[in-house]
C-alpha cells in the first residue's frame, strides 16, 4: 500500500485502436488531416493513462462481459489485464510497438502472438489483435486526406480518409475516421480493398471522464450482422499519470499484483 502508483490505463482506448483528433485552432484556419489525427490520438491517450473498462461481447444468443484494466504510455506501449470474471482473471496482453505478448496464468506462460495470428479476434471480441497492436501506426502507414467538413451538436466534424501507403503492412484498403473539433473520435470505418465496409467503430455517451470530455462507450460491429458487436464501456479513466517505460515489461505482464 503506501505507494500510490498511479498508473493509468488506457485499456480501452488502446483496444479501440482508434484514434484521432483534431485540432481546431481557432486562430489558425483549417488544420491538416494528419494534425487532426495526431491530436485525437494524443487526446484520448494522454501522455499516459490508466483505465478500467467493461468489455461486452454481444451475440444474438448470448452475451459475455469482462472487466479489464489497462495502462498505456505514449502511442506505443500498453498493458491490459483481465480483472473479471474470476475464471479469466489474470490473463493479460502486452503491446510494445507492433509486437504483442499474451499471458495466461493457468499455464503460466507468456506467448508472443505470431504475425499470422494478428488478424484473429482478441479475447473473442470483435476487436482483432491488429486493432490493438497497430492502433497508432495509422499515422505512418496511411496517407491522410481531409474530406468535406460537417457539423454535429454545435461541433465541427472532420472526416478523414486514410489510404494505406503502397508497402505498408496493413490489412485494410481504406479507413474513414470522423473526429470532432474537440479531438473526440466519433467513428472509425474499416474498409477492404474493394472499399466495402468490413467493420465499424462508433463512440457515444460523451461525458467528463478523467478530467476531460471522453466518449464512455465504444462499440465495434460488423455491418452484415447488426446483432453482433463488442462494446467497451469506460468505468474509470485517469490521464497523464506517472508511469515509466519499464512498466511495460514481461514480468509486469505476468504479475497479477500490478493492478
Amino acid at each position, binding site marked *: 500500500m503506501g505507494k500510490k502508483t498511479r498508473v493509468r490505463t488506457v485499456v480501452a482506448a488502446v483496444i479501440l485502436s482508434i484514434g484521432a483528433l483534431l485540432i481546431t485552432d481557432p486562430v489558425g484556419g483549417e488544420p491538416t488531416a494528419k494534425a487532426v489525427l495526431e491530436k485525437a490520438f494524443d487526446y484520448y491517450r494522454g501522455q499516459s493513462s490508466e483505465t478500467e473498462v467493461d468489455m461486452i*461481447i454481444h451475440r444474438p444468443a448470448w452475451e459475455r462481459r469482462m472487466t479489464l484494466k489497462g495502462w498505456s504510455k505514449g502511442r506505443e506501449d500498453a498493458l491490459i489485464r483481465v480483472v473479471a470474471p474470476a475464471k479469466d482473471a489474470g490473463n493479460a496482453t502486452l503491446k510494445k510497438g507492433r509486437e504483442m505478448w499474451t499471458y*495466461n496464468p493457468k499455464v503460466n506462460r507468456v*506467448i508472443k502472438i505470431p504475425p*499470422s495470428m494478428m488478424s484473429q479476434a482478441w479475447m473473442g471480441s470483435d476487436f482483432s489483435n491488429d486493432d490493438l497492436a497497430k492502433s497508432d501506426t495509422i499515422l505512418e502507414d496511411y496517407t491522410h486526406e481531409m474530406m468535406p467538413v460537417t457539423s454535429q451538436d454545435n461541433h465541427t466534424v472532420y472526416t478523414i480518409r486514410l489510404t494505406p501507403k503502397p508497402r505498408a503492412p496493413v490489412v485494410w484498403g481504406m479507413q474513414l475516421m470522423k473526429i470532432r473539433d474537440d479531438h473526440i473520435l466519433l467513428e472509425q470505418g474499416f474498409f477492404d480493398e474493394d472499399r466495402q465496409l468490413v467493420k465499424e467503430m462508433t463512440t457515444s455517451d460523451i461525458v467528463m471522464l478523467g478530467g476531460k470530455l471522453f466518449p464512455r462507450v465504444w462499440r465495434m460491429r460488423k455491418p452484415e450482422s447488426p446483432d453482433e458487436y463488442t462494446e467497451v464501456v469506460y468505468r474509470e479513466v485517469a490521464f497523464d499519470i506517472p508511469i515509466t517505460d519499464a512498466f511495460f515489461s514481461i514480468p509486469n505482464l505476468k504479475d497479477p499484483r500490478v493492478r
Partner: protein
Amino acid sequence: MSITAKISWRNIWRNKRRSLLTIGAILFASALLIFSISLQFSSYDTMIDAAVKRHTGHLQVQAEGYHTDKKMRLVIAHPQNLVQSIQDLSYIKAMSSRANAFCLVSSKQRTYGVWVAGVDPAREREVTTIARVIRKGSYLSDETAYEVVLGDILAKNLAVELGDELVLLGQGLDGSIAATAVTLRGIFSTGQPEFDRSALQMPLKAFQETFSMGESVHELVVVATDLERLPDLARSIRERLESASPSEGLQVLTWQQLLPGLEQSIRVDMVSGWINYGIVVIIVAFGIMNTFVMCVMERTREFGMLMALGMRPSQVARLVLLEAAFMSLLGIFLGVVGGCMVTYYFQIHGFQIPGAEQIMAQWGLPSRMWPRLSLMSIFTGPAVIVMVTLLTALYPVLRILGLGPARALRAL
C-alpha cells in the same frame, strides 16, 4: 442368314490382312479404353478413400451452419442420443465424435495458430488412418490424458520432440479463455503436407474440459461400409434426424460437401480423361474410315457389276454397312474380352509405375494401383467405338448411293 449378310461376311475375309488390321485397331482401342477407364475410376475411389480416411470420413453430422462458419457455439449438444438414434442403420462401418477449436499452439520457442481436434481415441482409430501413420511415439489411448499427436511438419515447425510440453491457448465454448498444457505423445505423417502442417489431435474428454464444452461435440464422423451405399446412408440418417429430434438443427454433409476441392479435382481430371479418350477414338475412327473408303474406291467396278446384275444401290450400300458392322462387332467383342482379361489381371495383382511414388504420395495415394472393372468401364468405350465406326462407314455408303452402274463399271 440373308444372302446380303452372307456375301458381306465373305467379303470381309476376301482381304484378310486389311480386315484383320481394322479389327485389330478396334480391338486395341476398346481394350485400351476399358483398361484406362477402369483405372481412372478406381483411382478416384482411392483418392476419395485416402482423403476421407485421413480426417473427414464419408459423411458427418454437424449443427446447421457449422461447416461454413466453424463457430464454436454451433455444437451437437447430445452426441450420445444422436449416436443411439442412428447406430442400428445398415452400411455404417464406424462412427466417432469430434470437437474442434482454433487456437494458438506454443512450444518453448514458437507459436502457430492451428485447428485442434478433440477425438475419441478408440473410435477414431476405426474412422481414420491417423493411428496407423504414427511415425514416432504412439497414438492417443487414454481418453482423459492431456496429450496430443500432431503432424510431422507441424512438429518440425514448432521444434518439438516426443515428451515435450505444448501450450494451447484459445477460447472456450462459454467465451472464457481456454488454456492448457499438453504433452506430445506421437507424431504422424499422412504424406499430405497441408494436413501434416496443421493437424493436431487430443483426447475428446480433455478437450471438452479445456474448452468448457461439457458433453457437446462439433461433428459426428461416419464411415460407410461401401462408397456406393453412401447416398442411401445419408438419406436414412437425414430421415432419422428429422423424425427423432426435429428441433436439434443438425445436418448431414457428405464428403462431396466436406471436401469440395476433392470433387472438383476429380471433375477436372475426368474432363482431361474424356479428352484423351476422345483423341483415341478419333484416331481409331480415321483408321477405320481409311479402310472403308479405300475398299469402296477399289471395289467401285465390283459394285457397278453388282448393280448391272440388278442389285439396287441401296442394297449395295447395305452390304457395305453390314461389312462395317461385322468388323466392328468382331473387334469390339475381342476387345472387350481381351480388355477385361488384362484389366482383371491387374485388378488382382496391381501394378506400380516406377518413380511415381512421390507424386502419388502428394495426392495421398498408395504407390500401387489397381484398376477396377465395372459395367460402366467395360461398356462405355466400346459403345462409343461402335457408333463411331458406323458413322465413318456412312461416307462410303453415301458415295455408293450416288453411283450408277454404267459410271461405276467405267471407273478405274
